């Protein structure tokens, strides 16, 4: 099985040469999914030199169709002849068999390289209002009286440290990183053995979180950025994405949600609930290792991340007094939490935040929830988290002073 690609105006023509049977179906599938990942959601499979299709081949085509369906994509089979044509027709692919690709089938340049990510205006006057909760200053004991109950409704997103336990008392042992978007919550229980947990709103039920540290943003998003690898910029670090979002919103303080394929995440998550810290507890190194887990390498390459956060450009900002932390770019500060999900393709073009988030939370469970950070250690530093392609919804923050 050999695959060769030609880009045409209507989509991508993939020429498959050889036999599509059980031995080659996996390789074929991998090759096709790679194109889907790269954003090619309209595929023409050139079957002119395909000599044989077995049921295993049919199965891989059905799987490909399913995958494309989730991103409103499709594929067509062109130039199928003889046995291959018959088999495909009998298997129910009749309607997708074309004599030839539409248009002139003339090769064109694979991707229109624009200087900047594609930008969609959603609602020009939308803005977010922020609210901050700070009952814990690492690594001091938690001020339990200042904990607040947080409800992330369908108009807001939030990130912080908290727990979904019923009472504040039960929460004390369970505070961990969370991120919540439009009622969907992903959180990391502070326990070495536990997997990340998640909650999805159902009808009248909205998850509530006891938070000891949180930033809640309420409001609508004004812009959507779509970014993908470009020759001069193969990966998008969070600093560049945030800078770009600030450019399109023309704001120096923004709130945003990013969904995208991961190049590498750098982050940390709690291993023990801060609620257990007493004035006598030592959290200095090396005891700190029992309290927090640092990723140690750039993680989760190839998976999908949902990241939410707030960012500020202000040379005078002092990170010790607020909720934001310095990014790689000087003068830029942000607080970011990410939930990692197994890979699934995102549709191209303008996509809805609510639908996208729902799709993540209705799929396989999250693999991790972590606080993202900028590893600026000289020499050994892992740098900043970065994404390959995805979408960023953003809007200006009307009250950056609460951060």
């Amino acid at each position, binding site marked *: 099985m050999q695959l060769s690609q030609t880009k045409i105006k209507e989509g991508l023509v993939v020429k498959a040469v050889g036999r599509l049977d059980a031995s080659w179906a996996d390789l074929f599938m991998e090759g096709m999914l790679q194109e889907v990942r790269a954003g090619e959601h309209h595929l023409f499979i050139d079957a002119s030199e395909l000599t044989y299709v077995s049921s295993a081949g049919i199965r891989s085509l059905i799987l490909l169709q399913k995958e494309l369906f989730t991103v409103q994509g499709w594929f067509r089979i062109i130039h199928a002849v003889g046995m291959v044509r018959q088999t495909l027709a009998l298997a129910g692919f009749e309607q997708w068999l074309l004599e030839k690709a539409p248009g002139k089938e003339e090769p064109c340049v694979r991707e229109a390289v624009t200087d900047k990510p594609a930008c969609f205006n959603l609602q020009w006057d939308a803005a977010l209002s922020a609210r901050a909760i700070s009952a814990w200053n690492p690594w001091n004991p938690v001020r339990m009286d200042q904990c607040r109950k947080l409800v992330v409704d369908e108009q807001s997103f939030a990130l912080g440290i908290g727990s979904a336990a019923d009472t504040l008392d039960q929460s004390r042992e369970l505070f961990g990183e969370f991120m919540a978007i439009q009622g969907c919550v992903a959180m990391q229980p502070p326990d070495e053995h536990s997997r990340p947990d998640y909650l999805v709103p159902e009808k009248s039920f909205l998850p509530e979180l006891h938070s000891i540290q949180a930033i809640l943003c309420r409001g609508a998003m004004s812009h959507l950025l779509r970014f993908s690898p470009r020759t001069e910029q193969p990966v998008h670090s969070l600093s560049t994405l945030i800078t770009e979002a600030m450019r399109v919103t023309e704001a120096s303080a923004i709130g945003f949600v990013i969904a995208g394929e991961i190049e590498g995440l750098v982050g940390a998550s709690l291993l023990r609930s801060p609620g257990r810290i007493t004035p006598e507890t030592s959290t200095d190194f090396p005891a*700190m290792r029992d309290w927090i887990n640092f990723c*140690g390498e750039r993680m989760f390459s190839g998976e999908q991340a949902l990241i939410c956060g707030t960012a500020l450009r202000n040379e005078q900002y002092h990170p010790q007094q607020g909720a934001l932390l310095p990014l790689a770019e000087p003068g830029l500060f942000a607080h970011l939490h990410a939930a990692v999900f197994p890979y699934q393709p995102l549709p191209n073009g303008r996509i809805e935040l609510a639908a996208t988030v729902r799709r993540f939370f209705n799929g396989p469970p999250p693999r991790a929830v972590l606080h993202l950070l900028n590893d600026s250690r000289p020499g050994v530093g892992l740098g900043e988290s970065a994404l390959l392609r995805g979408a960023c919804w953003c809007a200006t923050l009307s009250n950056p002073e609460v951060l």
Partner: protein
Amino acid sequence: MLELVNLHKTFMPGTANEVRALQGVSLTIQPGTFAVLIGSNGSGKSTLLNAVAGSFAPDAGTIRLNGCDLTRLPEHRRAARIGRVFQNPFAGTAAEMSIAENLALAMHRGKHRSLRPALTRNARTQMADRIRELKMDLENRLDNPIGTLSGGQRQALTLLMATWTRPDLLLLDEHTAALDPKSAAKVTALTQSIVQREKLTTLMVTHSMQQAVDMSDRIIMMHRGAIVQDYRDEHKQRIRIPDLMAAFDRLARRELFDESVADLLKSQYA
């Protein structure tokens, strides 16, 4: 019940090759528990097993089995209470002696060795009966030297020998690691059936996550001479291979967590 209290062992102390193999290991294993020790190479799991078996005396700490202090007893004096199967399938049997003679040794493990004939007719009948259960067609070959058998057959016999006089504790030191897959599966199944039937307290070292998950009541993970994880009861039941892999992964990450990371987190986690 096996009780280990604060065991310490350093090999070649004071030299460049100093190895702190055990650094304060404490562990209690309830009677009838099948406990599995896992850990990377050099984590101290085999050292712990050898300490219990009595291959060396620990620098500090106490080993008690059913309330009896074994710490200073030499290996052969512990044999009456402890059955042991080694990783090397040739280590547990005497190659030049016959199957019957090897089994006769095991039937008298830890007992007084008298000047009475070892192979009575009665003993041979017993042997044939027990060996028949192995379904290895060995019951008619009692007088063949054990060296003529395959590794799998020898390991199965070693297991039989280790459990013949029901020991208070059974030690299994990666006993299927050196066997071919088919023999390994057979010995694994045999181990499970014997341990279940005799309700043996067992401590097994293994590299196989699959074995650890499938066979045990309790999984103990070691790292750098200390116990870092102890999955038991209902926690053990939810453990699958990926959970163990993740636990190893966390250990590796913890190694990378040095002072510079601590400083970084002070500025980046506020």
